[in-house]
């Protein structure tokens, strides 16, 4: 039995309104933070909570905040990354639509910690309803003095603005997101300098995911001890797992990290639609798929990394016996090729090349050297791309070649037999 935290209010029709949120303990965390903590103490508290980012990389949140300079004279900025676009991921959308105030409350606490007076929430343009709910929640928060000048009578002031994305997956990468807010094409920038030092408008900036901010609100409302008691020691707290693909009960499941992938897709997901699972993608399509034999892997950062994959956005996509791995690999590669920002050649050219080979294989025109060529391409893209987009694409593709080479071979061999027959 798990007590719901992030999804506690989801079922109620009024869950997105401030009166319902406040009635259920909402904005208590902010009141505690403003009353009992200095900015530095807020950062230390989040460090103690061992909260790790929920967007993909799993970076320790408190540590990220602590990189912001203390005594500079530049304005500081806070950004919420709500550009959720990793295929299979829909948790942030649910948070923003059902319970936007916990995200806003977390943002206010974070802004207080890093001494930001302006915050932006970057929501992808496809999420019209999220934009509507967040905007309405922001306006309610202003009305109740949680935003604006002298929040709750303190000397802390904050404005939050919504910035709407326009269909570029790459803007989920934090430096590309900042470029986009600045009014440029979404292309990643070289790090260092890291955003904490020179981010938005060259000023110190912190960027966190929607779910990360939601966790912050609860940490202050209920305390670090409560938070660290949930889940594994190195990655505590509730986590939203999005289950999709070929399993019986798709949906969002709030669970501690650390349960096995098999348990997740079988006990919660209800098992495969047809037969058994062939493979499961554990963290969005850039996370390499895990074949059936590996489903006992634990869903936390360390174990998935040891299994040569990653927890990513905890978007679990299940593939049953009917799935064609080369077709799925083609679709994933097509996606990344389409979303490549074009800045670096390994990603821009390499993924397009890989996509063409995969399409050829899928349509039965694969050539004997194609798989070797794909291996070469993966090696050339991985580790040589400017940002994680190219790396993730090559990493995911390589896993399909490693675990399901026979499926590719079958497609290529069939064609070669046909070719002989037709002569």
């Amino acid at each position, binding site marked *: 039995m798990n007590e719901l935290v992030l999804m506690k209010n989801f*079922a109620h029709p009024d869950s997105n309104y401030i009166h319902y949120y406040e009635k259920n303990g909402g904005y208590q965390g902010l009141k505690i933070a403003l009353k009992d903590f200095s900015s530095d103490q807020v950062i230390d508290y989040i460090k103690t909570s061992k909260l790790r980012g929920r967007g993909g990389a799993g970076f320790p949140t408190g540590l990220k905040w602590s990189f912001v300079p203390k005594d500079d004279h530049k304005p500081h900025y806070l950004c919420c990354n709500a550009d959720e676009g990793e295929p299979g991921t829909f948790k942030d959308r649910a948070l923003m639509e059902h319970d936007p105030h916990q995200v806003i409350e977390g943002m206010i606490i974070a802004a207080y910690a890093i001494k930001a007076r302006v915050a932006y929430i970057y929501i992808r343009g496809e999420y019209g309803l999220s934009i509507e709910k967040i905007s309405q929640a922001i306006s309610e928060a202003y009305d109740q003095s949680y935003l604006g000048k002298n929040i709750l009578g303190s000397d802390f002031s904050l404005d939050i603005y919504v910035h709407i994305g*326009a269909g570029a997956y790459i803007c989920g990468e934090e430096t590309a997101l900042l470029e986009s807010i600045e009014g440029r094409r979404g292309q990643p920038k070289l790090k260092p300098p890291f955003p904490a030092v020179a981010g938005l408008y060259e000023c110190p900036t912190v960027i966190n995911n929607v779910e990360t901010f939601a966790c912050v609100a609860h940490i202050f409302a209920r305390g670090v001890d409560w938070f660290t008691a949930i889940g594994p020691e190195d990655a505590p707290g509730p986590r939203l797992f999005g289950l*999709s*693909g070929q399993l019986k009960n*798709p949906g969002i499941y709030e669970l501690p990290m650390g349960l096995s992938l098999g348990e997740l897709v079988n006990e919660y997901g209800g098992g495969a639609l047809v037969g058994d699972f062939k493979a499961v993608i554990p963290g969005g399509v850039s996370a390499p798929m895990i074949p059936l034999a590996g489903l006992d892997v634990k869903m936390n950062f360390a174990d998935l990394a040891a299994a040569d994959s990653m927890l990513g956005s905890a978007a679990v*996509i299940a593939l049953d016996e009917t799935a064609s791995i080369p077709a799925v690999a083609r679709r994933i590669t097509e996606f990344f090729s389409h979303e490549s920002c074009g800045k670096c050649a390994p990603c821009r050219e390499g993924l397009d090349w890989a996509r063409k080979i995969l399409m050829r294989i899928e349509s039965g025109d694969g050539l004997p050297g194609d798989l070797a060529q794909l291996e070469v391409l993966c090696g050339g893209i991985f580790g040589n791309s400017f940002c994680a987009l190219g790396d993730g694409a090559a990493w995911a593709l390589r896993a399909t070649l490693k675990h399901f080479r026979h499926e590719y071979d079958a497609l290529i061999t069939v064609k070669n037999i046909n070719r002989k027959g037709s002569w």
Partner: protein
Amino acid sequence: MTIETSKQNMLKDLTEPIAEICKRYPTRRSAIMPALYLAQEKYGFIDQPMYQVISKILDVPEIWVYELASFYTLYQRKAIGKYHLQLCTNVPCMLRDAYDLVEHVQTKLGIKPGETSKNGLFTLTTVECIGSCDVAPAMMINQTYYTKLSKQKIDQILDQLSETKALPQKETLSGKKPGAVS
């Protein structure tokens, strides 16, 4: 109406709302994306005269406006149908037979992805993940989600749109399974 008069009208329409947008950012360049959205909402799509108007209002080079309009895919640079069918074909939807639905819509409407029906009612686009993976296959028509699609369900929706020229009842929130955790 000449291009010049229509630009004058646009200037009149957009100057004030764009000035409002500028208050949110320390630089005018940041206001280009929201300004493009504003123009698109008002006129249906955006093209060069609008880039020029936005560039004039914000006092930024026209190329800054054009590069965003062409980089970001949600900006429509030509007129599209009244109903923009955006079918997701990414992995979670694909695993739930989204490609069959694309095929079905193509046959039914006689248009390929990227095309608009002759009566100007429908534009078909295949899109990347729209965050409805748990209720796949899914599509959006303009800003409204339609989920757990089947050929029959699509037929109903399209027939209704063709007849009434109005969007069916909104399907709203995502993640309909709050009780999913036991």
